[in-house]
Each structure stands twice: as C-alpha cells, then as structure tokens.
C-alpha cells in the first residue's frame, strides 16, 4: 500500500519535473533553423549539407560557417541541412554518406578531422561536391573543394598588437589541438608577437599551450587561469572551447583577442579585436562552380587580402591609438604582400 502510493507519487513527480522542464521551451528562444525554402525560383535549388563538430552557436568555428551558408540561402536558392555536434568521426562518416547517397549537391565537411572520410567517400559519389576545411588538401580528387583560413595572418596582426599593448609582456595562448586553422592562428600570433618585440626591442614571453581537446571548456578555462597566474595580461586562443577562457579574461580583467568569430559580445569590456572569418565569398565561388558542373578540384583560402578575413575591432574597448595604428599598418602590409607570415 505504502509502496504503491510512494511509487505513484514519485512517478507523478518525475513526470511533472520533465513536463515542466520541457514546457520551459515554450517560452524559450527558438532553435537554429534547419530547413530553408527557396526564394528565387529561376535558379534550381541546390541541396547543401553542413556537417560540423560543434554547435552552430559556438561563437567560433562552426558558427562562422553556419552563418555564412545560411546567409546565402535566399540569394543562391539553397536547401540547407545541418548536422552539428558531430565530433565522433565514425558517426560523421555515416551522415556524410547518407547525404551523399540522398542526392545532396554540396556537402560541407567543416572540420579537419573529417578529411579521411572525404578522401574515402568522394570517389564513390562523383556527382556530389564535397567541400572540406580547414586543412587545404583536395586529395587530387575532382569533386573535392578544399578551403582553409589563413588564420596566421590575423594571428600575426593580433600578436603584434598584443605584444605592444601588454604591460607585463607575457602573453597567454590557449590552443586546442595542433592542427588546422587553430595551429595556424597560434603560430601566426606567436610570430607577430616576436616581430613586435624585435622591432620595439623588448622581450615578450609567448608560450602556447594546447589543451588537447577542441571541446573541453573547463580545460581552456584552467589554461587561461594558469597563464593569468603567470602574469599574462593578454590572452588569446582558438576553437569552440575558448568561451571558458574568455570568461576567465573577463573575471580577471585581462584582455582577449578572438578568432573565427566576432567574440566581442562575449566580453564587451575585454575583447580587443577578433579575426572574423567570412566564408561567403568562397562559398559563392563553389556554388557557382557546382552549378557549372565543376564539382571540385580547387583550394580556397580566406585571408586578410581577399575579404575572407578581417580584424574586427571592438568599439566598446578603448584601444590605444598607437597600438591600433600599428595593427592597421600590419594589416595593410600583409594585404599588400609585403610581409609573408611564417607558418
């Protein structure tokens, strides 16, 4: 008897709890849209799939590509499907194969870990275009586009500025895994810092730490804290796990240089600038090529020079005029090709 009542009561409680929790959705923000409808009927619709290792609202890697492709859905008449948080490579492989076999025209595999999948699958679906980023190899296949971000360029600019503005001359660099655009960015940042130190004749400490994970926020936060405890007053990092590090910057009143996405909104008082990726131009090129029946064979690089990357200065942060001028000068130098950023 007692048991029955207790059991019933608790079941009700559990159901109520779950119902309440899910009912909260009703008033919640809407999720990312998945299906999009064509707007311009005169061009045939292109089915595009995006596979990414993190969430579409990660304020970094995935969001940059998601925002870019979504912005083109109307003008290019795209039907977009998104599979996010696909960090388990074997499952991503299944999904990519699904999309390919279901007649998608363009499959964007947004993550260097997907390379082996593309290499293996692309030959089986010669009429599907595979776009792979951010590691820059097409495997010599006719239906693979490779894209990458010359994030070392923006890294160089920001590293240069960081070294100039740092009072302690200790910089904190938190990388995820030593690959892809993350490694490029870190290398560029360190190079820029050293260049500033060389020309300004001061010493700067700019060790990079790789946490070993793209997704471990706590580890990134700990990494940032470690740097702060070592007197770093300027921090930077790459990947979707940097929000933890940015939180630390905010709490400890340090400054942050961002990459992949405009991260000023995360900590308006602490983010100096962000290297923002704009994938739209290269996506347009790919889509045009696909419509012209060329499904791959090209490598696209976004950089400071071609509008694919830009340094977005946070208007809410009062950056010293001299540092900003130095940064702008570096940008123009790189754009003009006067400086080759070491990799």
């Amino acid at each position, binding site marked *: 008897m007692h*048991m029955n009542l*207790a*059991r019933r009561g*608790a079941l009700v*409680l*559990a159901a109520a*709890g779950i119902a309440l*929790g899910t009912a*909260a*959705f009703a008033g*919640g*923000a*809407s*999720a*990312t849209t998945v299906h999009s409808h064509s707007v311009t009927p005169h061009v045939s619709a292109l089915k595009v799939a995006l596979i990414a290792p*993190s*969430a579409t*609202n990660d*304020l970094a890697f995935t969001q940059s590509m998601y925002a870019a492709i979504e912005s083109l859905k109307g003008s290019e008449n795209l039907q977009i499907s998104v599979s996010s*948080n696909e960090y388990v490579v074997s499952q991503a492989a299944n999904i990519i194969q699904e999309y390919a076999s279901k007649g998608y025209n363009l499959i964007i595999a947004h993550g260097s870990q997907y390379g082996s999948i593309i290499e293996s699958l692309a030959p089986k679906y010669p009429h599907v275009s595979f776009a792979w980023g951010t590691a820059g190899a097409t495997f010599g296949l006719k239906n693979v586009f490779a894209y990458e971000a010359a994030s070392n360029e923006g890294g160089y600019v920001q590293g240069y500025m960081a070294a100039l503005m740092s009072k302690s001359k200790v910089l*904190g660099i938190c990388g995820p895994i*030593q690959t892809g655009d993350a490694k490029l960015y870190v290398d560029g940042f360190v190079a820029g810092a050293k260049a500033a130190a060389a020309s300004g004749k001061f010493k700067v400490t700019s*060790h*990079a*730490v*790789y946490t*070993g*994970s793209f*997704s*471990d*926020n*706590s*580890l990134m*936060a*700990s*990494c940032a*804290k*470690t*740097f702060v*405890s*070592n*007197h770093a007053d300027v921090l930077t990092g790459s990947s*979707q*796990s940097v*929000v*933890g590090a*940015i*939180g*630390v910057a*905010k*709490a400890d009143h340090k400054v942050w240089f961002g990459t992949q996405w405009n991260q000023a*909104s*995360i*900590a308006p008082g602490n983010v100096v600038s962000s290297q923002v990726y704009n994938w739209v131009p290269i996506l347009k090129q790919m889509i045009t090529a696909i419509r012209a029946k060329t499904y791959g064979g090209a490598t696209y690089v976004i950089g400071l020079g071609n509008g694919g990357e830009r340094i977005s200065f946070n208007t809410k942060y009062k950056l010293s005029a001299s540092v900003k001028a130095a940064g702008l000068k570096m940008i123009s130098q790189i754009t003009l090709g006067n400086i080759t950023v070491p990799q």
Partner: protein
Amino acid sequence: MSHFFTYSVLTATVATALGLAAPFLLAALGETVGQRSGVINLGVDGIMLLSAFATYFTALRTGNLFYAILVGMGVGAVMGVVTAFISVTLKAEQGISGIGIYLFGLGFSDLLFIKLVGTPLPISTLNPINIPLLDRIPAVGGMFFKQTILVYLAFVLVPVVTFVLNRTTFGMKIRAVGENPAAADSVGVNVVRIRWEAVLIGCVLAGLAGAALLMFDGIFQENLTQAEGFIAVALVYFGAWRPVGVMGGSVLYGLAIAVVLEWKSLGIIPLSASDLAATAPAVITVLALLTVARRFRQPAALGKPYERGG
C-alpha cells in the same frame, strides 16, 4: 624548471589546483555520504550537468549568482528525489540506473541549452574572497585564502561531513545502514528513510558541484563536465569512504592538472609531449591507488538494495 620553483608560480599553481579540485570534492563528498549508507550513485555526472545548466540559465536571466547557485542545488535535490526513489524505494540496480540518469542528464542538459539559450554568453562569476589576515601569510596565504566562496565551502564541508558521519546520531545511522541494514532495521532505524536522506544529501552536493564548475568556467557548454562526475565517484573509492581521504584525492587530482598546465605554459613540457602529459592526472591517481594501503574496506551493504524480511 627553475621558473616553476618560484614563489609566485608555486602559489598560483596550488591556488588553481584548489579551485579545480572544488567541484570534484563537492561531488565526491556527496557521493561518500550516499555510499556510506549503501547506495552507489553513478549518475553524479548527469546531475552535475543538469544543475550546471540550471545555474547558468538562472544567472543569465536574473544576474543573481546566489539565486543561481540555489537553483543549482535545487536541481540536485530534484534529481536526488528521483535517484533515491529509483535506487532505494524501487530497489533498482544502482550501477545501471545511475548510468541511465547520466545519459538523461547529458542529453537533456544539452537539449535545454540548445533550445533555451540562443547565443551563449558568459555570466559574471564569483569573485574571489580574500580572507583578511590569513591571506597575508607568505606562500600559504596566496594558495589557500584567495578562493571563491564555493571553494571555501567545499573544503569546510570536509570536517563537517566527517563530524556528521562519525559523531552524530544521524551519521551513525547512515553508517549502520550501510554496513548492516538488517541489524539497523532490527533496532528500529528506518533504513529506507536514512538512505533517502543520504542520497538526497549526496545529490544536493552534486548539484552544488555542478554550480561550482559552472562558476569556474563562467559559461555552459555541451558536456561541460567531460566525465568529471565519474572521476568524483572514483575519488570516493580512492579516499576509502572517508571525507579526508576524498579531499586528498581531489586535491591530488587538481594538482596534477594544474601542474601539467603550468609546465606547459612555462615551456617545461614541450609541445610534442603535450598529449602524453595529459595522461598524468589519471596515471598519478592509479599509481597512488596502489601505494595507499588498502586498509579500509567498502561499506558492507554498498550497492545492495535492502528488502526487509523474506
């Protein structure tokens, strides 16, 4: 290496380690109480995730950190009711039901995160509280007395839980119920009720641990805990079901992580050994396991649902 053995670096490393250890410690203390009463809860990680999200969401919407932490604890309490009901009243298999709760917490916390939070923003987190006078002590002051309130709470709870377990009637009942529930029952202890209470305490502390982790990171993310809750459970075994031992294990683990990060940031660990160095915390714990004498055995009735009579 000489850089490492400087006053300021050592101080900072230990301070970071303690901050890192706090969520582990809170969850592990809660699990200790539950396990002393005979109930294993492997769902700690799921509970931590749910409460971390609740804390984050509340802080995001209200800006009130205290309220947010309370909500986190509240979520822990709700999950405690569910866990206790399943493990104690329904006498379900504790190991497996715990994994079920973990999976549910993992999936549901992220579902809520995706649907309720558009673009995630960091919350303003707890400020460290410097304890006056004590924080001026050379070396030690910087290490121990400049933490946030949740860290202090975690360490203060160690003697509190020890006291409760060893010196109060309630604690005695918990231990009795964990060692020999039939005997305890025969002298009038309400086994079911004591286990319920112990599990509730455990889950509230797990909720607090989730809140502490969230405060440490400043933002929520899918799978924020990265299996930290399981490590907390493992630490209970490591600490031989004694709060002091659990504290030792948590601090050891936190220190291992902090030292590795520190050495990486100072360039002591080269980039090529970066991944191998990441094994250090787990390896150290396993090694320590072997060296610590296995003097203490687990509560005799651990994991065994109690059924009165035949």
